[in-house]
């Protein structure tokens, strides 16, 4: 900021240039993005519905109390946390294993890494749909393959609450482990080769080097990838909507899904807005962490 606070004519003209170039984009952002968010916060203070023509009624922070005491909110919160708590560690472990396997380049390794990455950019609803086929109880290959490999009885993956959650975790792990892998690969390639050489001349074994050198040096990348995964899981909607639709019952309903259902199935504007504000606050906190992480790294 201090660079812009000018007093000479030149500085004023620089300042003007910076503002003029920023303006079109800034206006678009504020009108289309910030405006609705403010409107949303405003709505969260009212009892308001689209289902019936009842005039909105000001309710202070009553909606917030209602949301925070609603068991369905806590159920969605719990489900979101389960996906994070189980999915992220599993993905971190698998991602690290694959990253270590791929860390030493070999002919064609770039292509292999690119193929691994395909799940990340797949249209989300398609990934929901493809797992719906694969996990199909009657003719899906999952039951077939598990049957011949470990002799498991056919399961109705999407009809039982526990298995439905497992299904979502499988899907999420499939889609995002490769992402963890490439981020960690980037971290691994940033570790100077000479540090490994120093460790081997110093007499350390392969495992010793992994524990004493590689993993500690990957820590910032782990932090980053976990943070990003938390953000993505907060956002997750399309594949869950397609795969389980939150069911059976509400056993796999996530926060995003709950917000959608409250808004566009039940048309409860006040409560939906409240749910949205709560999630926005969580995101702002995470964004702050991300900024700290990214900015902190730049300084080093």
């Amino acid at each position: 900021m201090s660079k812009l606070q000018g007093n000479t004519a030149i500085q004023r003209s620089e300042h003007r240039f910076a503002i003029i170039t920023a303006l079109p984009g800034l206006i678009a952002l504020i009108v289309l993005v910030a405006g609705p968010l403010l409107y949303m916060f405003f709505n969260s203070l009212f009892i308001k519905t689209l289902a019936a023509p009842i005039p909105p009624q000001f309710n202070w922070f009553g909606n917030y109390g209602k949301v925070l005491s609603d068991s369905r909110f806590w159920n969605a919160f719990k489900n979101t946390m389960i996906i994070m708590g189980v999915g992220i560690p599993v993905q971190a472990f698998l991602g690290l294993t694959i990253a270590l396997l791929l860390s030493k380049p070999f002919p064609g390794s770039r292509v292999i890494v690119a193929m691994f990455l395909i799940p990340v950019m797949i249209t989300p609803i398609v990934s929901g749909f493809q797992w719906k086929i694969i996990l199909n109880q009657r003719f899906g290959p999952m039951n077939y393959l598990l049957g011949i490999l470990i002799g498991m009885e056919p399961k109705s993956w999407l009809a039982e609450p526990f298995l439905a959650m497992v299904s979502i975790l499988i899907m999420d792990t499939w889609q995002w482990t490769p992402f963890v892998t490439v981020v960690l690969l980037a971290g691994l390639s940033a570790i100077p080769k000479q540090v490994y050489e120093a460790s081997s001349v110093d007499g350390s074994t392969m495992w010793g080097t992994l524990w004493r050198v590689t993993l500690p040096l990957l820590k910032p990348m782990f932090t980053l990838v976990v943070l990003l995964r938390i953000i993505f899981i907060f956002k997750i909607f399309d594949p869950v909507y397609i795969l389980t639709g939150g069911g059976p019952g509400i056993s796999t309903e996530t926060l995003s899904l709950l917000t959608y259902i409250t808004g566009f199935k039940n048309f409860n504007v006040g409560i939906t807005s409240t749910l949205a504000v709560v999630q926005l606050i969580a995101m702002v906190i995470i964004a702050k962490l991300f900024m700290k992480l990214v900015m902190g790294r730049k300084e080093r």
Partner: protein
Amino acid sequence: MNREMLNRDELARKKRIKMILSIIRFLLIGIFLLIFMFPVYWIAIGAFKVEGEFYNFPPVFWPSQFSFENFERAFTMFNGTKGLVDSLIVAGANTVIVICFGVLLAYSMGRFKTGGDNLSFFVISLLFAPPVISAIPLFMIFRTLSMLDTYRVLYLSYILFNMPFGVWIMKGFFEDIPPGIEHAALLDGYSRWQAFRKYVLPLAVPGIAVTALFVFIFSWNEFLFALIFTRSSVETLTITLSGMIGGHQIHWGELSALSLVAILPGIILTLFFQKYLVRGLTFGAVKG
């Protein structure tokens, strides 16, 4: 001489261990690759199966014959053509808007620190917010403006997540360009604007192009807003797809065929722009 023999033996043993380790390594890579590629393979293979093969158990892992009738039917009977065209229109228009408005803002933020950390924080917060939270206010605003079920409603609402993304990523690209370039241009006798047009923008073109590709694919893949804001006169590919799964009978073959079409842009980005993919997905935190 004896010592040399010993050494030979040891060398051979070492070579053997090394070979076994590398076999295990490639075996594991192969297994993981198989697992992670399988769902994509299943979609691809499904697109070419004939109707009956879907309901076989054990499942058909390699169809007896490759048929294109699923594609044909998806495009003629299941609205696939409209889905494709509408997705192209919406994603294309949104990309143009986001890049045009975003480039200058990104340059201003990247070079002059316009808005400082506060604006950066604002942008990144918007980037992280789940889109579903803006759905209700946007829906109410668009309804009041009678914009529901138009092309406009989609390519405008996609600005919500694509603009913060585009600005953030392009800001990073501009920061990578050394300020000396502009200083040199100013000394040469050009104005700020000329320096930007003549020397900075051409340098940023690759970054902007990749950002545009990202923005396009995010629009292309979008489902939630399309589900809420449009009904019948506009129907993007993701809506067409979800429509096929929603009815009484699921048309697996046609669904697979159209899905294959839907995931193509993403696969192309992945295979050809791997370096930028990591940068994009980590919001610039990892510079690939």
